[in-house]
Every structure is written in structure tokens, then in C-alpha cells.
């Protein structure tokens, strides 16, 4: 059964990918990319990688689509014909693909229980993590505790991306140009007349925020965690900005707040690590945080997930602002 689902999803994925490559209308391409993300999220679910699927759905379908749309609204909605032959790219892609396929020839089969991947490190994660770390969701214990340092790095990557964007685009808004034409999609002006949207948004936004908090704090038990929660929380704010205008959203959470939040999230994460050192453990050794190692792990994971969530949220909104405020319009 799973095989059929896989085949169906893969076929759809291929079709979507071809369509993205083929189509010249950027708006459609972006929408198709969103679909592509959803499809791959479904594939991840089928592979039992729920956390990954969750992230893919939140980031790939949600935030990145919005950012792409914003980016497109700054340029043009149609792709120019490239001056070189697309054949060229085909060659590159086929070569790389062929090499990749060649490389997988000597790999153990997917799901092969004898594969060494299931025997070495994973064994301990599966058997020991409930006793050593605690959370029933093993993914969380691997991400936040066993390999918590990688997650710190990833959080820093998010912060870097935001700061890079701000450094290159600038955080200030450009001068308001009242006469400029309103081209592209998602104009805030028009939203005033869309009563349905406004009312639905008012109903949905609190729910989205609440859901984000749930994902944040329930990450230990179910799929989810700081990354997803941050993205979902950010999408609540972004929705608000889309419907009620950038100005209004900025009154709720302005740049300075976001900037401080972004920094504080990372500082919180690092701070937990440093606190562990101060309490006599290694860096990020949560056992040191409380008398009972399990309590320490729990507290540590809670805190760092919070840090991740805060940073991701702040950076996502900053990114949105940075693109949106370059449009030359204000709501």
C-alpha cells in the first residue's frame, strides 16, 4: 500500500517539478512550488518522518511561498527567456543525477533491517533516550539534546539569514511614494474591502498563535518544536500584516522588538549552554541544570526550544518586513 502512495506522490512531484521548470508565469511557478512542498511533506509523512513533514509544510508551503511572492512583486511576474540553451542545464542536472544514482547502487536497501545505519548510533537513541533524556518524541531528544549543538548552529544560521537580509536591504523603510502604481499581488489597499477576509483573519489569527504555542510546548510529546512553532507564530503575524497592512502589524511588533527578540532567542539558547557549564557540566549538558538529570534535561530542552522558537519567529517576521517595506507602498 505504502508503495502505491509513494509512487503516486512521486509522480505528482515529478509533474509539479516539470511544470515549475516549464512555466514562465512566476506567480504560477511559486504556487506550484508550494504544492511541491506539500507533496514532499506528504512523502515525509509516508516515510514516518512526521517532524520533517511538519517543518516542510510550515516553511516550504507557508513562509517561503509568501517570501517568494513578495520578492516577485518587487520585480516582474514573467520569467525572461534565458539567453543560453536549457539543454545545457539538462546536461548538468542529468550528470549530477546519474552520479547520485550511481552512488546509491552500493547502499543497503531502504528499510533493510541489517543496514549499518540502524545498528550503530540509532540503537542507543531508540533504546536509551527515554531513560536518558526523557521526551517520548525521540526526534526532539536527538535534536535538542544529543545533537543540541547542531541545533544551536541552525538557530544561528536563521539569525544570520535575517541579519544578512537586514544588512543588505536595510531595516528602515524607504520614503513613501503615494503616487506609485499598485502592481503585483497582495496589495494591502485592496484588503479593506474584503470583509470576509478581514473577519476570517480576525477569527483565525488567535487560533494560529495558540496553535503555535501548542506546537512550541508540546514538541516533547508530538511532532513539533521551536522551529515549527516560530514559523507558525510568524505566519500569524504575517497574515495580520497582509490583511490589515504593514503599518498596523508594525505597531504590534516593530523592528526593535523583533531585533531584540531575535538576539535574545539565540542568547537564551547559548545562555542555557553556558549555565550548564557554570553548574559543572559540559556545554549544553542539561543534566547539570537540576538535581535529577531527567528534570535537568526537561528544563534544558524546554528553554532551548523556547529560544529557537523566539529567534525563528523574529527572523521570519523581519524577513517579511524587509521585503514588504521595499515595495515603496505603505498601508
Amino acid at each position, binding site marked *: 500500500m505504502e508503495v502505491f502512495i509513494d509512487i503516486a506522490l512521486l509522480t505528482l512531484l515529478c509533474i509539479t517539478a516539470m511544470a515549475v521548470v516549464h512555466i514562465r508565469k512566476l506567480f504560477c511557478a511559486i504556487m506550484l512550488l508550494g504544492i511541491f512542498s506539500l507533496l514532499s511533506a506528504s512523502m515525509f509523512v509516508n516515510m514516518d518522518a512526521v517532524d520533517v513533514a511538519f517543518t516542510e509544510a510550515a516553511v516550504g508551503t507557508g513562509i517561503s511561498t509568501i517570501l517568494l511572492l513578495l520578492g516577485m512583486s518587487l520585480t516582474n511576474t514573467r520569467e525572461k527567456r534565458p539567453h543560453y540553451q536549457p539543454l545545457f542545464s539538462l546536461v548538468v542536472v542529468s550528470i549530477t543525477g546519474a552520479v547520485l544514482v550511481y*552512488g546509491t547502487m552500493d547502499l543497503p536497501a531502504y528499510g533493510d533491517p541489517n543496514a549499518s545505519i540502524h545498528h550503530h548510533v540509532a540503537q542507543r537513541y531508540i533504546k536509551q533516550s527515554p531513560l536518558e533524556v526523557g521526551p517520548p518524541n525521540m526526534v526532539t531528544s536527538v535534536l535538542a539534546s544529543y545533537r543540541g549543538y547542531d541545533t544551536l548552529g541552525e538557530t544561528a544560521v536563521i539569525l544570520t539569514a535575517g541579519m544578512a537580509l537586514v544588512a543588505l536591504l536595510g531595516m528602515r523603510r524607504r520614503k513613501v511614494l503615494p503616487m506609485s502604481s499598485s502592481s503585483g499581488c497582495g496589495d494591502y489597499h485592496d484588503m479593506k474591502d474584503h470583509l470576509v477576509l478581514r473577519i476570517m483573519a480576525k477569527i483565525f489569527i488567535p487560533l494560529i498563535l495558540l496553535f503555535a504555542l501548542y506546537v512550541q510546548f508540546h514538541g516533547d510529546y508530538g511532532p513539533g518544536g521551536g522551529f515549527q512553532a516560530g514559523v507558525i507564530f510568524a505566519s500569524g503575524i504575517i497574515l495580520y500584516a497582509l490583511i490589515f497592512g504593514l503599518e498596523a502589524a508594525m505597531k504590534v511588533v516593530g523592528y526593535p522588538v523583533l531585533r531584540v527578540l531575535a538576539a535574545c532567542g539565540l542568547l537564551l539558547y547559548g545562555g542555557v549552554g553556558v549555565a550548564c557549564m557554570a553548574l559543572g557540566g559540559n556545554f549544553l549538558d542539561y543534566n547539570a541544570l537540576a538535581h535529577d538529570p531527567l528534570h535537568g534535561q526537561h528544563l534544558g530542552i524546554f528553554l532551548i526550544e523556547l529560544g529557537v522558537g523566539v529567534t525563528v519567529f523574529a527572523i521570519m517576521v523581519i524577513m517579511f518586513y524587509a521585503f514588504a517595506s521595499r515595495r515603496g507602498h505603505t498601508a
Partner: protein
Amino acid sequence: MSVDLLLSPGFIIIGAAVLLCLPTARWRKIVVGVAPLLALLRLWALPTGSHGTVAVATFNLDLLHVTATGRLFASAFLLAVWLGGMFAAASASRRELISAYVYAGSAISVTLCGDLITLFLFWEAMAVTSAVVIWSARTRAAWSAGMRYLLIHLFGGVILLAGIALWYSTGGSLQLGVLQRPSLGYWLIMAGFLVNTGAPPLSFWIADAYPQASPTGMVFLAAFTTKTAVYVLISYFAGADILIPIGLYMAIYGALYALREDNVRRILAYSIVNQVGFMVAAVGIGGEMAINGATAHAFAHIMYKTVLLMGAGSVMLSTGEQRGSALGGLARRMPWTSACVLIGAAASMGVPLTSSFVTKSLILEAAAEHHLSMVWLTLIICSAAVVFNAGVRFPYLTLFQPQQSEAVEHGHDPGTLSRVAMMLTAAICLLVGLFPGYFYTLLPYPSNYHPYNVAHILEQLQLLLPAALLFFISLPLTTPVGQIQLDTDWLLRRPLLAMWHNGIMRLLALGLRSRDYAVASLVRGYTLLFHYHGPRGILARSWPTGSIALWVALMLVSYVILFTLRSMDMATFIKLYLHG
């Protein structure tokens, strides 16, 4: 690197050169007055032997290796740079002082280093910095003379380096010590050294280059290059017979050419060749006494040549004139200078009670001891012929002949510091002559030679006075000419010129078309190079990002193919291929 090495006397002097960058003249004077003395103290505080090596690449450089000979040479250099610096401090340009200090520091380092590689490095440093000293005169003539000088010395350096490389590659040791076992490397090293002594056929560079330096610059130049060459000959080639004829040639050459020279500083330059010839011959004779003699005479020569050049420098500074035919009658106007020059001249001739008397006789005695009668005779004649250059001719032309031109009216003694320097140098010349016993204890080998006996004194006077008499009598015959004298360089130049005019031009004309073709193809090659590598060339352009991706893919696939092909041998490859 230990502090010991950093504080070697040579490095102290080079460090002082850095201090000389100081803007104010007062500080510079203090540095000039103090630094060499510190270095001198340091030098005599160092025990003999090696003071540790520094590993550079695979060589162990013996940067500081004190030997008795080296120490005496280094002391002479330090005294020369001290006195010369004081003499120059008032009038020399900052550039000249700095380069002279680096030059002196390098020369001192040559005398205090323990292997050929280090020696070569400082050798080249000397060549470059001394050229800068010449250029510091800031005249056109000085520029081209400095260039010729530098070319000759770099040429010598190349020979030396080739020699060292050959010597090393054939298993020779680079350590300080007399080289045995003549081979091509041996001869090349010797030739490289000899270029700096002013040996034939390149003897002309001394008289060509030195007099073009500034009045103060030549004081420095005369002291170091030739004497370091003597030092290295002593250290590496003591007793090499070939050096005897070379030394004799130089001694005669110097005496001959000085006789018809008009430029007084050039007279002194020829005198350097003459005296260095004595030392080279002594090195060739070998044996304790000869080496003692070469070392002692080098010391004495540095001192009296410094005093003579200071005198010539003072004359030139005040009158702006260095042609013998335009000087004269300065003895009254420059009493202090004249007194010092007289002492220097006496020292150069070897008049009893002066330095040369007690040093040169060591060399003569050594020649006699080895029963080299012809050598002895030639050296005797040459030591009499010193009268023709530094001994009588120079002071006579400069100071005592009847006044020849207006320029002399401006003659006056130099400033206090310079005068003090000059007098100190003269005093050293006298002291060495007065207390030979003390001086001999500093020499590399113990000596029981006693210069002062009636016979020896009389002999010396008997040599000098007739020579002087002859000189004065033949004065009208040896009238200076206002032109450059040519020697071997003429021999090199004349046939070359003739060939240039007759043969080569025609050959060139014949080969013009092929040359044009070569040039054209060169240009085409350059264009091709430029086409691909130039700013717009295919290899330098900013490429579209996509094409780089193609490169990536190509590299990737070629790596995979190559890995696969190479990592399994062909048999297993085929086996795997057949079985899927």
C-alpha cells in the same frame, strides 16, 4: 633565535641604521657616536666560537661565529664606521648614512658568520647597500658608476652563489674553514671572492666607482668591500698559491695607474688596489706570519685609508674640487687636515713609528721566510712605489704643490666633530705604529716579530727616499691627464666595439627579417596570452553562474570515473561489470 644572535655586532649596526631614520640631526649624531662603540664592546665581550645556529629551511645558518681574525676585521670595521660616521654626520645625507650603516653592518656580519650561505646573504646585502651609498651622491655620474659597480658585484655574487651551490652539491662543507680539494666549485667561490678584492681582470671597478661617491661616502666605501674580501680569502683560501701572482699584479697595477691619475680620490682608490694586492699575496703565501701580516695590514690599511679619504673629503667639501691639477697650496688653509693627512700618508708608506711599518713588514718577512725571492723583490718595489700614490703624490698634489686654481681659496678645515674623527683616526695609525707589541697580541697567531731595529728602519727609509726622489724628478713626465685611464676594460671594450661596428651590425641586418618575425610572433604570443588571460580574456572574465555549474558537474563525473577506474584494478573492474 636567541638574544645572543640578535645582539651580534653586525645586527647592532644594522639596528642603528633603523635609528638613523630619526628626523633630528642631533639624535643622529648621538646614534652615530654611540652605536659602533656599543657594538665594539659587545664584540670583545663575545668569546670565540659559534654562538648557535638558526635553521632556515634545511640549512643551519651560523649567524654569529667569532674567530680571532674575524674579530680583528670586525673591530677595524667598527672603528671605521664609528669614525667615518662621525666625520660624515654633519654633511652626509640621511640616505647615505643609513645605507652606509647597513653596508657596514653587513660587512661586519660577513666577518662574524660561520657558513657560506649566511656569508652570501650578507655579501649581496653589501653589494646593494654600497651601491646605494654611491648613488647617494645624487649626480648623474654617480648613478651610472653605481650601476656599473652593482652589475659587477652582482655578477660576482652570481659566480659566488654558483660556486657555493656546486661546492655543496659535490659534498663540500659550508662551514667556516679553509677549503681543500680544488674543484670547479672551489674555483668559482674563489673567483666570486676575488671580484670584490679588485683582482684582475676586473680591477678597474674600484677606481671607477668609489670616487663618484660623495666626499663622505667614499670614506665608508673604501673600508669594507675589499677588506671583507681579504677576510674571506684568509678564512677560506689561506695558502692558495694562485693568489700570489694575483696579489702581485694588483700591487703593481695600483702603483702604476695612480701615477698618471689626476683625480686625487681616484689616486687613493688605486692605492687601495695596490695595498689589497699586498694582502692577497700574503694570503697566497700562507703560513702563520703571512696570515698575521694580511690581517694586521688590513687593519692598518683601513685606518690610514680612512684618514686619507677624510682629508680628501674635507678638501672636496670645502673646495668642491678633486682634480689634482686644480688643487695645491692648501696646507696653510687646512692645518689640521694637513697634519692628519701627513700622518696618514706616512702610515701608508710605512714610515717608521706608523702602523704600516709594523704590519707590512710582517708580509715581507713572511715572503722572505718562504724563500719566495721574486715575490719578495716585487713586494719591496711595490712598497717603495706607494710613494707614487698615497704616500707622497696625494699629499703633494693636494696640499703642497703651488696653488693651481681659484677653488682652493675656499679651503678650510671641517667642523669640530669631523675634525675630531679625523684626528682620532690619525691617532690610531700612530698608536699601532708606536706599540706594535700590544697590537700583535690581537693577531690570530702568536708573533715574536720585532719591527724596530736599526737595520729595518734604515732599509725602509732607503726604500722610500730614493723613490720619492725619483717621483719628484719625474714629475713633469707623469703630468696628470684629465681623462679616465683605461686598463683591462679597454681591452674588453675595444674589440667589442669593433665587432659591434663591423660584424654584429651586419649580422643583425642580415637577420633583421627573422628578428622581425620573432618579434611579430612574440607579439602574437603576447596577444594570444592577453586574449585568454587579459582582463577581458576568457580565463579572467566573470562567468555566468550556470556555466560554473557545468564545471561542477564535469568535475564531479570525472572524479567519479577516475576514482572508479583507479581504485579498482582493471581485473576487478571487469569482473564487477560482467556480474552486474
